[in-house]
Each structure stands twice: as structure tokens, then as C-alpha cells.
């Protein structure tokens, strides 16, 4: 993968974000600025290989920015591409005169943008012997493709409904339906694909434009295109390649507040990765805690000084890739390693897609260096079965505050299913659970070789001696009686998980 840096300058946050995602997916390091002044600063600090700038910017426009970059000997070789929605001939001419290397008209094709940038870079790369970045499978984020498809579909289906009885062109409609069927199926929108296929078949019949069924199908399609699924904060649709890259990875967090830790856990949980909070003291280079994670995400904050090993510039001794997070000014303050492109960075305020992409890139870069740990070490989180919603909420809330993922099973049978699907680091059981009771679940776990070493903790209100003896006799690792101390429970679970790992 390339570590070439590209700077995006655009006033509109949505455009900046889309371009960032597309280029990050193609393997570039991306930074962005909302105006020319900020861009100049970033160019001085990061020395990007290419700048993609809108011509119409607030204050100093893109043309002036380009002129200034061209006049500065330090930046005159930077490749500058104009990106604008107003594709007037005069603009193109002005851009050429100002010193732009290329011109991209918005809305651009996300599939072609990385190739355009690569093309421009490779022209100068031939001289500098820099290999071009490998084409990435997930160059266009799936979420973006899906969003566009739905937006276009809604527009087209509405138009088709409007002209159905009057200017309906079956040939054109057939092309549209065919596209919907194909793309809908690819994107997992089975209902849309199915309806589009049915509509295609109706077009083969006589007088399709008067068919009430076709009208009905178009109505249904319009509803499906405009329907917005409920979306949680930080829940992102991720390309399969990203999930594969992150799944099972353990990410170490240093210097994050509880709320941000929680958010990161949620974000990376979507990609089936787990996060672990590393204390500054434990996270020294080559320490056990640091070695247990595959990527270090370091938060640089105004209110907390970085640890000594950062000041001593011992970063090179850290084997894991590091993703720095923080406000732009602080990132620049600690910018030696950032400028070299050795480490990735995430500028605050960040969003979920960007965080995942950055982590994915960092891991991908380190992938060839660090072998993956064996699967048994990837057991993470806790599976819990209890019929009391308060206890469930308490345990889940507490464990999650310690960055331990907690999956809840409704009954004993489901516990066994969950464990078979994703073996957890520990299991918390109540004695009285529906279907199969806690003792039977424990016995079943201990019978199977694959699950016999998973620590099992009983959390129950039953405190009779016989129950306790029976639980330990069957192989339970701990027995906690309610009312319990949530923090004590978390400490016990952590200890057991550590021992088991």
C-alpha cells in the first residue's frame, strides 16, 4: 500500500468526506481542509503529494491557492487538481493558467477518482521511482454506493410513475429495471431486485403502460427506495473487505475519556474488533500489555501530557502500528512521525467511517510485519444468561465500561449456540435460566473439548451450600451471590479471562 498523502480542499463537509473515503479506500493517506488558508498550512506541515481543491472556496479561492503553491519552491512540484461543480469553459481555462495539473468535474465517478489521481501521481512517480498504490477492492465505500443507488432509484421510480399512462417508454424502462435488478441484488436489496425482475417480465406483455400491477410495483419500488432503515449512531455499513481486515483484531486505547472509549468500542464492535484500554504505565514499548494488541490508538489531549516514552521518541521501538487521534494543532505539535507517514492519524472530531478506515489502513500496513495470533487468543467478550433484566443491564453496563463486550442469551440453549458461534473469553450464568439450567449448561461446556477451558462464573441469588458445591464440582471457576458488587464481578471476570488467555 502507498503512504502518499493527498490533501482535499473543499468547503462542503459532505464532499470532503466522500473524497476522503474514496481515496483512503484506495490506500492514500488523506487530510482535508475547508479553506485555502488551512490548506496552505497543511501543505507546509504534511507535504502532500497531491492537492485536490475546489475552485470556489470562501476567502482565498482555489486559483489563488494554486498560484501561491506554485510560487513557493517547497511546494511548486505538488500535483494540484481542480475539483468543481461549475464546469464552465472559462473555469477550465483559468485553472490551466493558474497552474493546475488536472481538472475533475463534480459529481465525479467514485470508481474513477482513484485512477485519475493515480494517473497524475504516476507521471511524476516515474521520475521519483515511487511505486503506484495497489488498486483496492473496496475503493468505493459500500454505503456510498447504496446511498446513491437508493437516491437515484427514488427519483427514477417517481418519474416512471408520473409518465406511466402518457409518455412511458418501455425500452428505457426495461434498461432501468434491469439495472435495479442487478445492482439491487449485488447490494443485498433483495426486495428491490425481485420487484424489478417482475416489472421486466410485465414489460414483455401487451400494453404494459396500462397494467395496474406495473403501477403497483412502481409504487412499491418508490417506497423501498425512499425507506430509511433505523440507524444507530456510529453504526456503519462496511465493505466485507474491511470487516475481514478488522474482525478479531484487538485494539489498544491510550488516553481516551470513558465516553470516547465507549464510542470507539461501539464503532469497532461493528467490525467485530475488540478494544482494550491500556494505562499509560502499562503501555511502554515492548510491555506485555502493548504486545497483546495489534493496533495502538493513541489520544493526544490538551489536558493530559503524553507519556514519557512518546517524549523520548521511543515510538520506533513500538512494533504495533499507532493511530494518533486528536485536535489538528496537537497532532502537528507531535508531528515528526506523522509527517514521515509512518503512523496514521485521525483528526478530532472524527466519525465512525473514518475511524474504521484509518484503523483498517494501519492494520493493513502492519499486516505483513505481525503474524496473527492463534484463534484461541481471539476469544473476547462475555456471554451471559440471566432472566432478570436488571442484573443483565447491570452486568452488561459494568463490563462494557471495562471494554468487555457482553452478549446476552435468553436461555441455556442460546448460550451454547452463542458459544459455538463465537467462543467468548468467559461465561456468566444464573442457575435458574430457561430451557437448560445453569448447571446443565456448565456440564455441556465442560464436556466439549473446544469449550472446556472457557471460564464459567455463576451469578445467582441461590446461596445454599449444595448449589455452591455442585457448581464447583461441575467445574465452575467462580460463584458470586446476589446482591453483588458490579466492580468486583468485573475484576473477577478480567482475572479469569487473563488467566484463560
Amino acid at each position, binding site marked *: 500500500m502507498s503512504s502518499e498523502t493527498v490533501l482535499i480542499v473543499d468547503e462542503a463537509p459532505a464532499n470532503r468526506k466522500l473524497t476522503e473515503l474514496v481515496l483512503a479506500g484506495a490506500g492514500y493517506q488523506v487530510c482535508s481542509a475547508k479553506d485555502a488558508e488551512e490548506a496552505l498550512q497543511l501543505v507546509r506541515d504534511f507535504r502532500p503529494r497531491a492537492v485536490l481543491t475546489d475552485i470556489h472556496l470562501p476567502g482565498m479561492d482555489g486559483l489563488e491557492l494554486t498560484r501561491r503553491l506554485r510560487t513557493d519552491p517547497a511546494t511548486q512540484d505538488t500535483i494540484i487538481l481542480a475539483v468543481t461543480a461549475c464546469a464552465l469553459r472559462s473555469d477550465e481555462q483559468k485553472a490551466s493558467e493558474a497552474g493546475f495539473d488536472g481538472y475533475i468535474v463534480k459529481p465525479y465517478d467514485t470508481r474513477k477518482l482513484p485512477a485519475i489521481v493515480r494517473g497524475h501521481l504516476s507521471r511524476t512517480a516515474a521520475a521519483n521511482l515511487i511505486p503506484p498504490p495497489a488498486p483496492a477492492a473496496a475503493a468505493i465505500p459500500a454505503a456510498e454506493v447504496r446511498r446513491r443507488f437508493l437516491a437515484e432509484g427514488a427519483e427514477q421510480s417517481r418519474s416512471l410513475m408520473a409518465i406511466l399512462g402518457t409518455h412511458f417508454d418501455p425500452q428505457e424502462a426495461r434498461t432501468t429495471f434491469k439495472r435495479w435488478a442487478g445492482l439491487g441484488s449485488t447490494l443485498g436489496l433483495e426486495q428491490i431486485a425481485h420487484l424489478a425482475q417482475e416489472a421486466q417480465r410485465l414489460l414483455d406483455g401487451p400494453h404494459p403502460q396500462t397494467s395496474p400491477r406495473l403501477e403497483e410495483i412502481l409504487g412499491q419500488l418508490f417506497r423501498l427506495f425512499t425507506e430509511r432503515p433505523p440507524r444507530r449512531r456510529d453504526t456503519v455499513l462496511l465493505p466485507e473487505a474491511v470487516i475481514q481486515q478488522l474482525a478479531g483484531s484487538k485494539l489498544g486505547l491510550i488516553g481516551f475519556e470513558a465516553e470516547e472509549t465507549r464510542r470507539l468500542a461501539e464503532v469497532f464492535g461493528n467490525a467485530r474488533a475488540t478494544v482494550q484500554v491500556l494505562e499509560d504505565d502499562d503501555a511502554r514499548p515492548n510491555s506485555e500489555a502493548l504486545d497483546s494488541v495489534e493496533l495502538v490508538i493513541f489520544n493526544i489531549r490538551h489536558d493530559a501530557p503524553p507519556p514519557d516514552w512518546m517524549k523520548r521518541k521511543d515510538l520506533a521501538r513500538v512494533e504495533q502500528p499507532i493511530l494518533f487521534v486528536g485536535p489538528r494543532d496537537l497532532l502537528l505539535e507531535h508531528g515528526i512521525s506523522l509527517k514521515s507517514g509512518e503512523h496514521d492519524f485521525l483528526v478530532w472530531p472524527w466519525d465512525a467511517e473514518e475511524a474504521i478506515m484509518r484503523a483498517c489502513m494501519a492494520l493493513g500496513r502492519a499486516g505483513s510485519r505481525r503474524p496473527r495470533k492463534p484463534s484461541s487468543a481471539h476469544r473476547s467478550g462475555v456471554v451471559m444468561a440471566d432472566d432478570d433484566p436488571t442484573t443483565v443491564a447491570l452486568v452488561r453496563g*459494568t463490563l462494557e465500561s471495562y471494554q468487555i463486550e457482553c452478549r446476552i442469551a435468553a436461555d441455556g440453549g442460546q448460550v451454547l449456540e452463542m458459544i459455538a458461534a463465537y467462543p467468548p473469553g468467559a461465561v456468566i450464568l444464573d442457575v435458574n435460566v430457561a430451557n437448560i439450567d445453569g448447571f446443565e449448561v456448565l456440564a455441556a461446556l465442560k464436556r466439549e473439548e473446544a469449550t472446556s477451558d472457557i471460564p464459567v462464573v455463576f451469578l445467582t441469588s441461590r446461596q445454599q451450600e449444595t448449589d455452591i458445591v455442585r457448581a464447583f464440582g461441575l467445574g465452575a471457576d467462580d460463584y458470586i451471590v446476589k446482591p453483588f458488587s*458490579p*466492580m468486583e464481578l468485573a475484576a473477577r471476570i478480567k482475572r479469569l479471562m487473563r488467566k484463560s488467555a
Partner: protein
Amino acid sequence: MSAPGRRERRARLLICLKTLCVLLSYIALTWLIHHAYMHKHVPDVELSLALSFTVQQISAILTLLGVSFAAKFVRHYRAQRAERFQPFIREKLILHLNGTDQWVELRRSRARHPRELEECVVEILASIQGAGSDRLSEVAREFGLMRKWQTQRHATNTSKRRKAISRLCLLGPAAQQDLLEALRDSDDLVKVEAARALAGSGDSRMVTAVFEMALGQNRLVRAILSEALRPRARELYRSAVPDALVSPDPKRVLAALEILRAWRKSAVIPHLPALLLHADSAVRAAAFHLLPQAGMAAEYEAPIWRALEDPDPGVRTAAAEVCGKLKLSSSLLHLQRALHDPAPAMVLAATYALAELGANGCKVLESEVLSSHSLRAAAALEALEHAKLNRAATVGM
């Protein structure tokens, strides 16, 4: 008449009065309908009264149905609200007790869903202990829940008082004063609930207060509290027990001895020699029952021999049992004499004690099996069988 008897009588009287009130209100209502409306339209008095009664009955049934439906609706509405809001409130409370400040959200919930918040606080407090519990108790205090429960503790309605005290018990040291006051409540359940919470608090002053309260309670309450106090027995042996055992009230002394016996802990029982000679026979008997826990000492032998000839059969029986439990071989002749005691319980205790004394005791029993006195013969045979079974069990081990 005893206090429970008086209470039961009062409760029955109350039921009779309530029934009478309902009857009178029925009659009054029927008369009112007849007088105000029905007789103007129905000249026949008897028919008018019958119709008034019917109208009154229908009204009563409709009212009851209406109230029942309203209650059901309210319950359903509350359940729906709880289902809707409690998960969110619970989540915020858990975040808060885990150390993330959630005051703003919790205050909002308090303003919008006070009932749901209260239920969540109670549910979680009942499930946890430690630092999290302290943080949640602070929430309960801050939101006035504690004040509300304190007010409800003085309600005339018993179930309200019980509910309030069970909630105050969850608040730990903050509610100790209320719990102490609740020890004087007229309702046993309220007292037990408060006492158990205080006994579990770990505060010596509170444990002593509970022990002293237990001494004045009925046997059931005492049995429950004995269990609650068992973990603090050692401490109580040093603090409250000596004072209780020298109380001028023999009932309190007896209650204290019964609690000590229920604990089944080997310990030095304060003032035991004096209690073995106590003026009250029940106290004497209870003191003898405690001898196996205190361990045998030479100073106790003389009182045991004397007790075997005590005028009270309860004391004699207790002394005989102690001889068996302590395997006092020197008591053989005394027990042999005790076989001729007029009290059947004493005869049975003596035979069992002899069976515990080994070969010599069994010899005596074997000779008694052939006795013409049916009770002695049967008791001796039973004790011998018992001894044989015990031996077999010991060999089997």
C-alpha cells in the same frame, strides 16, 4: 390474654364491623332510592323497595366493575410506561453507578418519569452492593426518594410501611436512624426487615440494638433474627450478651439463652454457673441446654447432680440430656436413679443419656429392658437400639 390473642380478637371485631357497615350502607342506599325516587313512580311500597334494592345492586356491581377496570387500566398503563422508559433509565443509572456522571439525564428522567425512576433505583439497589450502591443511594437521597420513603414509613397502612421500610433498608447507613425507629413498629414484618438490615450493616451499635430488640420479641421473630445475628455472635458475646444474661427480667434472660443456643457456637457463656442456679426454672433448663456449647468444667458437676433432682421436670430432663451429651460417666448412678422419675420425658432422657455412656450404661439399660415397668422397658429398648445404630454408623464410617 396474650398480645397475639388480643390482636386476633381485634382483627375479627374489625371484620364484623366492616360487614355491618356494608350491610347498613346497602340498606341506607336502598331506602334512599326508594324514598327519593322509586316510591313516586311505583305506588306499591313492597315493589318499590324491591326495585330500589335491584337498582342499588346494579349500581354497586357497575361501580365495582368500573373500579376494577380502572385499576386494570392503570396497571396496564404503568406496565407499558415501565416497559418503555425503564430500559433507558436503567442504563443511565448503571452508567452513573459505574462512575460516569449522568446527573443531567437522571434529573430529566426524574422530572418526566418519577415512578419509573424510583422502581429502577429500587431494583438496582436490591441487586448490588459496594461503591455502586453508595452512588445510587446518593441518587435516591438527591431525588427525594429517601424522604418519600421516610414519610411512608409512618403511614397507617401496614403494607405501605412494609414497602417503605424494605426500600429504606437498601440505603445503608443513611437510613440507619429510620431503621432503628422501625424496630419499635407494631408490625412484626417491618421490625424483622429493619432488624435484618441493621444486623447486616456491620455497625456494632446497630447489631447490639437488634439483639436487644430481639430479646423482647415472640419466638418466630427471634428465630429469624437469631439467624441474621449469627455472623456477629462473637462480637455480641463480648458486648450485649453479658448484660442480657444478668437482666432482672427472666423472660429476657431466657430469650438470650435461646438465641445463644440457636447460634450453636462453642463459647464461654458469661455468668453460666449463676444461671444454672437461677430462680426461674425455665432459665435453669435453658442454661443446662447450653452446657455442651460451653464445655464441661468441674464447677458444673455439682449443679448437674442437683439439677437431676430439681423439682421442675424440665430442668431434670435438661440435666439428664447434658449428662448424655457430655458423656459424664460419673453420672451413671444418678441417671440410674433418674429412670424411676415420675416424668416420662425425664425417663426417656435418662435412658438416652445412659446409652451414650458406653458399655456400663448399656448394661444398665439391658437390665431395664426386662423391667416390669412398661415405660422404662420401652425407653431402655429404644435407647439401646439407638446406641446400636449409632455404633453401626460409626463403624461404617
